[in-house]
């Protein structure tokens, strides 16, 4: 079974180096998708997405240093991934992290000390979601080629009037006899089975229901009624921020989104946030296994990370389509979950009992969300032409090759093309 990991490395930036670091990483970002890039992630067979994001200190706490976050969605164990990254980008890593605290001095830099540094600064995340779980990068690429092969086969044959099962048989014969595709004769690696965890979750969660209800009541009376939303409107967003953000948007099928929010003061809100993130993480791993959250089919990976001792929340997401599409999907289909997390952050539109209203105040919500958006200096995607739906459909196509199908099932499977 494949273990998808989200690797996050967080380091402090040296005082005074912030703007040169921003320029440097921005420059790497301009070329990172190129074959001849300094950062040769294109040669990796395990990195799905990667990014560097610079985080400014909180507005009222100049003593906190700027931070540089590196985040990467990859296959396999963390140490192996770090070693590979060092092999692909040691010069760039040296240039970047020399501007950060605690990086080995020039004389002391070698692959071992670099690894030690990155490993030391690797930081956990609170909650992740994966749109195409249990699939390695190589599997995603193989299955894309499999589909393309079958599409070409279908294009060069006329199956008019033939029963669906005949067509399926013809496809199987083609695939299993085509040397480049015959690997598909082997079953796909098994997907994680999560039923036991779900049952366990329900057993534990059930007695907690009264606690949660009381909790929500306190939240409603003592917090939601008195907290102030920012009431920011889209027209009042800073045009300079929008320009910077848009520079790296809508270039590929996917987009990235980095968002930094202030968590509301007090332990009650922080605890609420931790509980919601834990639950979201659990559901992401065990419930939403088909590439969708509440039928939102456009998220590859996202992660939530509480940082600065519970003061700020960092959200990193890789998704399909435009920003408007992404937010619109969430508002239309997953307002509940979005409110549950984000209403614990300052300025969010007013919610009722944690989960209601909130994002449906759509103009204020969109402005708030965009305002919390921070520029991603460098972003890499391993499959810039595939969306989550494509990846999951390719897997479904492959699974069908080894399934027994009656005429109806065969007809349904053929509709995937």
């Amino acid at each position: 079974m494949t273990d998808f990991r989200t690797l996050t490395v967080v380091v402090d930036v040296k005082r005074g180096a912030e703007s040169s670091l921003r320029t440097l990483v921005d420059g790497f970002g301009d070329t990172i998708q190129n074959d001849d890039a300094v950062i040769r992630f294109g040669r990796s067979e395990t990195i799905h997405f990667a990014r560097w994001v610079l985080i400014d200190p909180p507005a009222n706490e100049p003593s906190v240093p700027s931070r540089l976050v590196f985040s990467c969605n990859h296959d396999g164990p963390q140490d192996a991934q770090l070693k590979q990254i060092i092999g692909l980008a040691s010069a760039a890593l040296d240039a970047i992290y020399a501007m950060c605290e605690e990086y080995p001095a020039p004389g002391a830099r070698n692959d071992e000390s670099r690894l030690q540094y990155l490993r030391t600064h690797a930081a956990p995340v609170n909650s992740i979601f994966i749109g195409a779980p249990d699939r390695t990068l190589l599997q995603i690429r193989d299955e894309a080629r499999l589909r393309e092969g079958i599409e070409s086969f279908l294009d060069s044959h006329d199956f008019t009037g033939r029963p669906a099962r005949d067509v399926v048989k013809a496809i199987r014969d083609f695939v299993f006899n085509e040397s480049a595709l015959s690997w598909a004769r082997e079953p796909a690696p098994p997907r994680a089975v999560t039923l036991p965890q779900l049952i366990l979750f329900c057993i534990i969660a059930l007695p907690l229901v009264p606690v949660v209800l009381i909790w929500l009541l306190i939240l409603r009376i003592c917090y939601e009624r008195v907290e102030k939303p920012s009431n920011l409107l889209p027209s009042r967003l800073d045009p300079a921020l929008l320009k910077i953000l848009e520079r790296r948007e809508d270039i590929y099928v996917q987009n990235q989104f980095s968002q930094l929010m202030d968590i509301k003061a007090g332990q009650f809100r922080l605890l609420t946030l931790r509980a919601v993130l834990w639950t979201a993480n659990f559901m992401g791993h065990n419930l939403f296994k088909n590439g969708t959250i509440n039928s939102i089919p456009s998220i590859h990976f996202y992660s939530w990370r509480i940082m600065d001792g519970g003061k700020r929340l960092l959200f990193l997401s890789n998704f399909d389509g435009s920003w408007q599409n992404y937010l619109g999907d969430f508002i239309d289909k997953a307002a509940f979950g979005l409110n549950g997390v984000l209403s614990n952050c300052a300025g969010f539109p007013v919610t009722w009992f944690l989960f209601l209203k909130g994002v449906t105040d759509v103009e204020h919500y969109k402005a708030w969300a965009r305002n919390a958006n921070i520029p991603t200096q460098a972003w890499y995607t391993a499959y810039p032409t595939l969306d989550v739906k494509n990846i999951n459909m390719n897997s479904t196509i492959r699974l069908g090759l080894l399934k027994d199908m009656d005429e109806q099932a065969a007809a349904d499977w053929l509709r995937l093309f």
Partner: protein
Amino acid sequence: MDKVDVNEIQGIILRGYGKFDISCFVLLHVTNAPAARTWLGRIAPTVNTANRQGDYDTNPKPHPVLNIAFTYAGLLALGLQQANTRSFVNEFREGMVTAHRQRLLGDVDQSDPTLWRWGGPKNDVLHIMLCLYATDQPAMDAFRQKVAAEFEGAGLKVIGRLDGLTLEGRREHFGFRDGIGQPKMDGYDENTGDPSPENHVAPGEFLLGYPNEYGVYPDTPTIAQPQGDLNLLKSVAAGSGLKDLGRNGTYFVFRQMSQDVKGFWSDLSNRTRNNDGSDNSAARIQLASKMVGRWPSGAPITRYPTADPGGLSDEDNFGFREHDPIGEQCPIGSHVRRTNPRDGLQDSTSAQSTKITNHHRLLRRGRAYGPMFARSMHPDDLLTAPQPAEEVGLLFMCFNANIANQFDFVQANWAGSEKFEKFYNDPDPLMGVQRSSPIGPAQFTIQASPVRKIVPNLKRYVEVRGGAFMFMPSISAIRFLASIGD
């Protein structure tokens, strides 16, 4: 639902002016702000409203009418202070031409704004657009001259003119009936007994100052720095206490798109020939209709899958979910199904799909331009008729309260996206195809049993020749703009 204020709203927004076959769009640049404001005050009472009473409805040949819209540069040029333009949404302020929006809208290659005839970075800056409508050409000529006579000493320079017309059977140049499938607006279009209540949309989707489909007021421009006669403006409906410049106005999207009629029909002819190499009229028209999603008559192909019932049709009371869920009649990637998915979005329930669709509706008010290829507008004649000397195309116009979530969204995520629904490389076959894409040559999928048919290597038949985002204010807001120098 309260009625919308028809005496305040400009007529073209809500009425469409079906009786006016001839239209003319005069592009103006302000050279002298005080003189232009005086002119604006003079013409304000002549701007036609959405009030249905009067000449237009009773007279078979109503008098020509005028509507007016402004670009962001135009509002500044008239003297609206920066502090007061700041509250217009970013999309309007930055306009249709930015590097980012070029990617969103697909305005690249031959459609690159540097090649545009108007609205682009190399053209004179558009400030004001006058939209003139008349029943026939002589009436329009007389009206245009009368309007132009007012330009004398008005501090205006005419920088362009676009002439629109209604083609036979209200078709666009490829030969398909156009302008069907419009949303109905609560507070204006009567809802009583309408067979398709799901087609009724909240007024705030198309007008500022009213609640939208989410039940909130769209972002509206307000006055931050007092200037002009503020008594003309009401306070913001959402309750901020500021004077509302946007109320009863809306955003106006205009794109001039040339159409390669010969290219379109010859390409489809080549793709559908008989075995002996001769043109197959029925197959050619069927393929084109599959791409459009309606037959040339306008009849929806999801209802009439085998042949065009003929005549002219505005049939709009249908969904996709029940009888055509997988697109075997009306392909999922067809133009009408992707720009108005109705109840048919694949990853949603019917109700959810309708709800999502109604967050992205447009009031379309387009007109054709350029001479008809053939009087009959029949595809067979369009294929064989000689190429007219002049370019032909569509003056695409639409109104929406939220450019980002409506026009931009539909163009970027539904029409232009190769990944719409579950596709890999299927953009809108009519208006979304790019000459080169990193994903590879564009295709069109026709869902069928036992397997789909692919129309490969789609060509681009439409190019953008100009465009702008404009603001079409209320009658009071026009009078306010005329007063801002006082």
